[in-house]
């Protein structure tokens, strides 16, 4: 809470009434004369054409799915097909109001939106731009196929065929598809036309779209962003979080006014009245009309209204008005665009939840034939012209489809030849000091910042005699984090950081103290307690081309952002076939002394998900060097920190923490103590307990223990770990993550594979117990400590003469605990 905003009890306790604006419902009134004035004849005919093209595009897929053939072309499409037959007017109408620089993000049912936006962009860009886009996109792979199909009248005709072909090829998982087939039906996108990722998670686009809108606002990029999401998604947490995040007061009260206000985002609900088979209106939700939900978000009710999505010009009108509001900074906006799908949710849908008569009622009001009739009635076209459009459309679809189903013209990614093709897409592994060339916006010179204080501190925590120096005068782990953050803020103008308590408070653990003074609001701000949106917004910001460093206050809160971390942050680089980058560093703090919901180390869960890099530094030197590494990359990193360590000075790296910039080499474990009898390998803060155990093993048992901090979970170089295992033959792995399913078991398995013949016993794993984290007073029975480490060494690896263990760590305990499930 910034000090500039005072909460006055006199005001807060005042009786009053909340008054809300009235929301328009289907307010658009058709006025043929006005429409003829607003749009050229060609534009109106194009609306018809585009709707027809979408209908035919989807019909062909429907035929493939249900009959295995379309106009004599036989094809078995194995993947999904969520068709939008019936919804064409909502998509085409929207794009009538957009420019190429405006972004749309969609859902699993977005083929129509992709085509509508693409067709609109093709008309807006000049021919040279179109040719360049087609030539450069994916090395011209789709263009080469399309060029060979026909002689085109001009670049726009070629681009239309390219758009249809690239989308089909993507749906059919071909290397010539817009995302090399890695996205498929539900994830296709094409950034040059403003078609951004479509999301197969219901509502998944809401916070990502907001992140892109935030990017546009913070980086002063033109255009608006639309999240096209389904009616049922309004009840999902991340959508709710995104709408609230989009409506924060601070855009108006605290951010620089010249920046232009709130992020330009339109939450556009494609309301087809069904969430799969459930009916939000009347059955599964209670909003009556979806537009009403806007009333809950802010005083402007998100400028929400219901729009007749069966009239493309009504949708265009509403979209145009919202766009003007958004560009003026008055967002967010919300539209409840009613529409209807004739086809099922998917081909397997027998429509058991609705009657034939209902579908027929909508068919009777079909937007395409209705709009065609209007065109004829108003003299914009005659029926033979419409017939010609139909014939051309069918011809285009058929011609393109023949190429798209043909495995010679449109091959799949040759995984049988190059099995690592997808592996090569998982990470971009680039070094990017700055993602834009302009000067970073800051409030003070770097040398005037808190760096002045931190750089003057002792950089190593022990004096020459090995005694600890005063903590307040020594650089801590938290301050090492600060130094890495501020460095990148002053290098990369696109970098922003946000989370709960990030400003003023400086993060709940003070790592950002000093950044508030250095950075304007739009580069460092507090968010609502909306973990899903915190991560989802960062995903969108990164995909749009900026560097985001969001923070989750406690590791335990990752559950609230599960989809955003596991399905969004982890997936988009590869699902885009490396068209997009994900320069996103998610800082996550592992708690302690705070009970069962605030003290868990979930690094193992994250490491399990393909597509994420996972770092976990244990010393100030590594904290700074590894955060520097993460913040100059282009890959998604989940950066674990431990609350046990924030006040820890550097006591292990002899030179202390350099004041200058440096990076730790990615994936490299570090040997903190060399030894010959046993290897103890740790992840995270357990390192210090392992060093204590090593001291005791030497003092009390005459054993020389090697202690290695893995530092990285993914990527991880096993060579030094295996070398240590081969040397000592006895390996203990320890971390604060609960033992069952711990990443330590993956390490144990790999080390066993790599060093089997040298092992003097099976690699032992010591995690926390498979319990709830007990109260702080009982910590020692739960987390691995030096005692537990020596106990497990004694019972599993090397019985120590005369030693009396304090805990049961024998192999028998493995089966006993597993049998009991604890």
């Amino acid at each position, binding site marked *: 809470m910034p000090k500039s905003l005072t909460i006055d009890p006199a005001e807060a306790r005042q009786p009053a009434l909340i008054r809300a604006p009235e929301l328009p419902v289907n307010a658009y009134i058709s006025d043929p004369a006005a429409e003829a004035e607003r749009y050229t004849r060609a534009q109106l005919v194009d609306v018809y054409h585009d709707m027809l093209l979408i209908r035919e595009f989807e019909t062909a897929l429907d035929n493939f799915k249900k009959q295995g053939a379309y106009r004599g072309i036989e094809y078995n499409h194995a993947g999904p097909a969520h068709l939008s037959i019936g919804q064409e007017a909502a998509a085409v109408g929207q794009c009538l109001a957009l420019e190429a620089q405006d972004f749309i993000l969609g859902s699993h049912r977005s083929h129509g939106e992709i085509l509508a936006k693409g067709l609109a962009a093709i008309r807006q860009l000049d021919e040279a731009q179109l040719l360049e886009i087609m030539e450069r996109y994916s090395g011209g792979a789709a263009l080469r196929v399309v060029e060979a199909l026909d002689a085109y009248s001009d670049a726009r005709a070629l681009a239309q065929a390219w758009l249809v072909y690239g989308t089909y090829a993507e749906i059919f998982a071909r290397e010539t598809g817009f995302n090399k087939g890695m996205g498929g039906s539900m994830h296709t996108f094409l950034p040059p036309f403003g078609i951004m990722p479509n999301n197969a998670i219901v509502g998944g686009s809401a916070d990502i779209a907001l992140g892109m809108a935030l990017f546009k606002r913070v980086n002063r990029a033109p255009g608006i962003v639309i999240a096209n999401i389904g009616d049922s998604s309004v009840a999902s947490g991340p959508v709710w979080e995104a709408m609230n995040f989009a409506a924060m007061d601070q855009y108006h009260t605290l951010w620089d006014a010249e920046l232009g206000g709130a992020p330009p985002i339109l939450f556009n609900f494609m309301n087809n009245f069904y969430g799969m088979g459930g009916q939000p209106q009347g059955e599964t939700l209670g909003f009556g009309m979806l537009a009403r939900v806007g009333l809950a978000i802010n005083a402007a009710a998100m400028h929400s209204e219901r729009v007749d999505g069966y009239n493309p010009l009504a949708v265009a009108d509403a979209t145009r008005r919202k766009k003007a509001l958004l560009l003026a900074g008055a967002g967010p906006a919300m539209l409840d665009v009613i529409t209807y799908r004739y086809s099922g949710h998917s081909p397997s849908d027998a429509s058991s939840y609705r009657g034939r008569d209902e579908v027929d009622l909508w068919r009777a009001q079909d937007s395409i034939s209705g709009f065609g009739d209007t065109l004829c009635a108003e003299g914009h076209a005659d029926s033979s012209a419409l017939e010609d459009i139909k014939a051309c459309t069918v011809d285009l679809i058929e011609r393109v489809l023949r190429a798209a189903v043909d495995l010679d013209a449109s091959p799949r990614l040759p995984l049988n030849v190059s099995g690592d093709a997808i592996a090569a897409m998982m990470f971009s592994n680039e070094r990017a000091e700055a993602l834009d060339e302009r000067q970073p916006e800051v409030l003070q010179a770097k040398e005037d910042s808190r760096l002045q204080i931190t750089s003057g501190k002792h950089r190593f925590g022990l004096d020459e005699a090995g005694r600890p120096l005063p903590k307040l005068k020594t650089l801590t782990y938290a301050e090492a984090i600060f130094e890495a953050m501020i460095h990148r803020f002053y290098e990369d103008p696109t970098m922003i950081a946000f989370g709960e308590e990030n400003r003023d408070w400086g993060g709940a653990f003070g790592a950002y103290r000093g950044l508030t003074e250095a950075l304007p609001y739009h580069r460092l701000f507090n968010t609502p307690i909306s973990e899903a949106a915190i991560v989802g917004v960062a995903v969108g910001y990164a995909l749009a081309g900026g560097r985001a460093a969001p923070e989750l206050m406690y590791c335990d809160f990752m559950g609230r952002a599960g989809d955003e971390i596991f399905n969004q942050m982890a997936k988009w680089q590869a699902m885009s076939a490396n068209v997009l980058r994900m320069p996103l560093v998610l800082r996550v703090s592992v708690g302690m002394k705070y009970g069962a919901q605030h003290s868990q180390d979930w690094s193992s869960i994250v490491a399990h998900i393909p597509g994420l890099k996972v770092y976990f530094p244990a010393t100030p030197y590594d904290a700074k060097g590894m955060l520097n590494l993460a913040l100059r990359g282009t890959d998604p990193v989940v950066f674990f920190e431990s609350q046990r360590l924030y006040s820890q000075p550097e006591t292990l790296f002899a030179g202390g923490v350099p004041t200058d910039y440096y990076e730790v080499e990615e994936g490299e474990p570090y040997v903190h103590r060399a030894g010959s009898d046993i290897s103890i390998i740790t992840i995270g803060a357990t390192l210090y307990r392992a060093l204590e155990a090593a001291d005791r093993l030497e003092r009390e048992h005459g054993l020389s223990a090697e202690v290695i901090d893995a530092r990285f979970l993914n990527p991880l170089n096993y060579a030094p770990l295996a070398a240590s295992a081969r040397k000592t033959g006895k390996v203990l792995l320890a971390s604060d993550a609960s033992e069952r399913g711990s990443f330590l078991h993956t390490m144990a398995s790999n080390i066993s594979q790599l060093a089997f*013949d040298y092992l003097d016993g099976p690699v032992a794993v010591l995690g926390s117990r498979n319990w709830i984290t007990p109260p702080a007073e009982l910590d020692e029975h739960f987390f691995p400590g030096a005692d537990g480490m020596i106990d497990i060494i004694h019972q599993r690896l090397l*019985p120590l003469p005369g030693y009396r263990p304090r805990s049961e760590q*024998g192999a*028998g305990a493995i089966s006993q605990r597993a049998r009991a499930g604890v």
Partner: protein
Amino acid sequence: MAEAVVMPKLGNTVESAVILGWHVAVGAEVSAGDLLCEIETDKATLEIESTASGILLAQLCAVGDEVPVLSAIALVGSVGSQGESIAEFTAETPSQPTASAMGRNEALEDFEHVEKNIVKISPRARNLAQRNGINYENIDGSGPRGRIIERDIEAALRELPAKVTPVAQAMLDSGDFKLAEGHPGDRRVSKADLTPVERERAAKAIPLAGLRKTIARRLRESLTTTAQLTLNATADARALQAYRRRLKTSEAGLGLAAVSINDLLLFAVARTLPEFPALNSLFEHETIVQLDSVHLGLAVDSERGLMAPVLRNAESLSLKQISAEARRLAEACRAGSIQPDELSGGSFTVSNLGALGIESFTPILNPPQVGLLGVGSINLKPVQQDGEVAFVPHIGLSLTINHQVIDGAPAARFLQKLGANLAQIDLLVAT
């Protein structure tokens, strides 16, 4: 209380036996001395009698199991004693550090029952044992649950220093051999008890670099750009050997004692080549250049790889000079002090593998040179003399030529002449 019937010890060399069949069913009454089961060792089939009386509570081994001697095969007792007894007989050794303190449970016992018939030893300990010819099967493991670990083998090694014959020890130390399976630990380990170790594949990957990289490239180029033909012959080596003996025993002051067979070879080649200019020539850019002098390349085996320093104008050097210069060049190669210009400009090369027992081989040319003489070892060859067969020492000569520019017959004539010169090397030196 139940009693165990154990697999008896059936002689000094029998360590285990296979159960062939049970004669008493579980639950049946059995008396001490009754036939209990039939077993088979590697030497004989035997019948085992029960050593206890009562009800057969459990057969601890199945038909077909191989059971170590002195381990329990059956439990005999009264009904009701079964549960505790199985646990007791399958339980861990009392040295287990925490078992008694922590209490036991069924899962743990299940675990150990499965393990009781195998020798528990870590891979590391087994490797150490096999490398040192230690039979570990009777060693008590000090590791968790009785596992034999590295320190147990180390202790056994300290106790049993003299049980391996010196030859066997040397073989074991080489790392190429290990003790064969099933060797009884109480007998001295000899060469016959060892079997070769199966080597890990690709133990070490060494990227090509430096001289090795150059050699690899040049040899490949040599084979791909020339037509190489190797001719093999032998030459009477009696004169060589006799002359070498004389040199070796000559007065120290003459400085000839160090002249080797190879020096004599070099000398002979240097004196023979001028008569065969086709062999003392270079072929490059579609041109043959015949040289006036013999610049004799000398293949030297150094730690860094094969090198070929050049004896310049060898045809004009005396035997003593050739010997001294050859030695100087070889030592410079081995010391790494050889100069680049001493490694280039050769017109013909001699490579001698005779000292390593090679009789003949197919040397690879050093282009643009067109001839290279490989020298083999000296071996006895039956020769017919005066109607009788005598064994005469002969030295192997393998001449590789570039068949693009030299025909077989002239090359053969060179070999013939060289052989004749070697056969009268003493005279050749005098010329």
